[in-house]
């Protein structure tokens, strides 16, 4: 009996101590990690979306409230004129969520391009959704994109239907966010 009690007490104490210390560490590192992700994950994705930007989209980003979520919007400017914005959304893929950064042209509501930020798809198959062959199909397309199998004009990656569907769903979700936020975005940067 004594032994069982001591086992329970010691193990609980160890687990509690590690739980508390990790929660504390997680909280203290959170802002730094977010900044790192912006630099190393979202930054390069934005560069793929609009390489010609003359401003610094990551530094000039602004957060918008939408249906209780925080949506980060990255402006794309030429000089002082706001040409477009990029925002990220995600949807379920084959191995987890696929995050896609989507650039929108403000003047005619078309897509400037997409860049995959995070994914855990099968290497060599699902990861092809991040390659130009797939992603460049989105450039210039309207806001209602869809796969060819569903009446749209995007060719899915063969052998990676789920990943392709996920990527397209993420783009659609971003497009919905964009439509909902467009008025607010134009007010903010004009």
């Amino acid at each position, binding site marked *: 009996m004594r032994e069982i009690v001591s086992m329970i007490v010691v193990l609980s104490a160890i687990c509690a101590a590690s739980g508390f*210390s990790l929660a504390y560490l997680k909280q203290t590192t959170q802002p730094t990690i977010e900044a790192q992700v912006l630099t190393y994950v979202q930054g390069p994705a934005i560069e793929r979306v609009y390489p010609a930007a003359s401003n610094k989209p990551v530094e000039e980003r602004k957060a918008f409230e939408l249906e209780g979520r925080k949506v980060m919007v990255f402006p794309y400017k030429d000089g002082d004129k706001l040409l477009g914005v990029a925002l990220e959304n995600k949807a379920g893929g084959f191995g987890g969520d696929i995050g896609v950064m989507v650039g929108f042209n403000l003047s005619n509501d078309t897509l400037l391009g997409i860049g995959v930020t995070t994914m855990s798809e099968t290497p060599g198959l699902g990861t092809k959704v991040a390659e130009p062959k797939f992603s460049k199909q989105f450039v210039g397309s309207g806001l209602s994109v869809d796969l060819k199998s569903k009446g749209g004009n995007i060719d899915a990656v063969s052998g990676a239907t789920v990943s392709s569907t996920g990527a397209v769903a993420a783009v659609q979700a971003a497009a919905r966010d964009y439509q909902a936020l467009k008025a607010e975005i134009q007010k903010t940067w004009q």
Partner: protein
Amino acid sequence: MASMWKEFSKGLWAEIPPFRLVLGLCPTLAVTKSAENGFGMGMAVIFVLVLSNVLISAVRKIIPKKVRIVCFIAMAATMVVAVELLMQAFTYPLYQQLGIFVPLIVVNCIILGRAEAFAAKNPIHLAAADGLGIGIGYTLALTFLGGLRELFGAGSLFGHYVMPEGFVPFALMVEAPGAFICLGGLLALMNCLTIVMSRRGGRELPVNAPCGADCCDANK
């Protein structure tokens, strides 16, 4: 002091993992695509190993025998998550490279092996010296292995191109088979060296050369 040095230095040659203490092979094979990756993985292992050794040694008297493995793993896991968070916060590109292998340090046999064989039976200062020695040995080994593979597979070292012009990279070396070939070759070399050295010294040939003589016998 002398005993601390003895525990520290054994990790650098006599029981250097993974060449003598053949443990922790999964990350060894997977992350040593470049010298930098090997070095980064080694640093993470040093951090986890020293802290987990010290912690386990500090609480070794209150841990009930029957649940000791669970306790060791819980403490090692805490250290690993801490490393993961710190890596994400300060060395994000390295974290992207090492990816899944950082959380997998939890089940790295070296951590549990040192906890069970050494830290659970020795005072804190010896456990720290042991962890540091084994960790540094592991880092040296991984950096060397990574450097070797990077040199032949990509023609560079720590990201700088060093091979003469016209060198055709031997791409197999940075793929998975290259890891096995390199590690196997190095293990064979180490064994060969051990045999030659014991012949020269007139000592008896070790029966099980790769494990050193008493790597897991903490009572000695």
